[in-house]
């Protein structure tokens, strides 16, 4: 399952708004700015019928390939990298790659745990 989307150009104003909303005091491009490009993850979670009330985001990894910056036009591709059930829990890993101009900028991996209701697990 893979989804892709092209988003609007990153502006200096977007960066400042993100810094304000994260109480960021340091200079430079925020390291977690790409979190706003996770919207396809929510679409994929809906497609696998994950109950978001039972969902916990347990781990997040970023691998930075090239700096993301103002003026970049983010192209995002998201896929379910892993989806397995164990002891009444569903473990899902969603991978999002953010590129711009065809160059890979950031790879993001979000690990989710979903508590399954009785009867939903294998």
């Amino acid at each position: 399952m893979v989804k892709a989307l092209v988003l609007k150009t990153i502006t200096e104003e977007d960066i400042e708004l993100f810094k304000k909303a994260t109480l960021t005091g340091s200079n430079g491009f925020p390291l977690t700015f790409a979190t706003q490009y996770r919207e396809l993850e929510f679409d994929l979670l809906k497609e696998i019928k994950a109950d978001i009330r039972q969902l916990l985001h347990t781990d997040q990894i970023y691998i930075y390939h090239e700096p993301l910056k103002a003026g970049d036009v983010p192209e995002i591709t998201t896929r379910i990298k892993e989806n397995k059930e164990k002891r009444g829990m569903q473990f899902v890993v969603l991978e999002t790659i953010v590129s711009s101009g065809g160059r890979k900028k950031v790879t993001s991996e979000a690990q989710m745990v979903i508590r399954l209701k009785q009867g939903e697990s294998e």
Partner: protein
Amino acid sequence: MIWSEGQSLEEIKKGPISEELLKQYAETARDPNPIHLDPEFAKAAGFPSVIAHGMLSMAFLADAIRLNFPESEFKVERFSARFRKVTFPGSVLTVKGKIKKVESDSVVLLLSIENEAGEVTTSGEAQVVAKRPRPA
């Protein structure tokens, strides 16, 4: 600056975390999960109130990295976080860090966030590399 293993980074405080901040963050980060915004939804999920976004905590860790290792001099190659305990509105958080490992031009950082009770809510790790070779 000479780096050494075990060296602590300067602590920073964040908060109190307000519900207004969570709304602002949800909008800016485009996170539609109502567990961060809707008290009734949060109660149905088993929490006494809305909870803060794990990714907001990760942004606090990121700020600690950049305050100590500015973008003009250092690039971050990899950054990870584990969300261990939920954070509720009203919390004041302390962001801590120390150097786990030193290599020629890079360091591995261990990061954490503690709540007022001293519980670790978030832990993290980052690989930071100097953009210019450091003098021997």
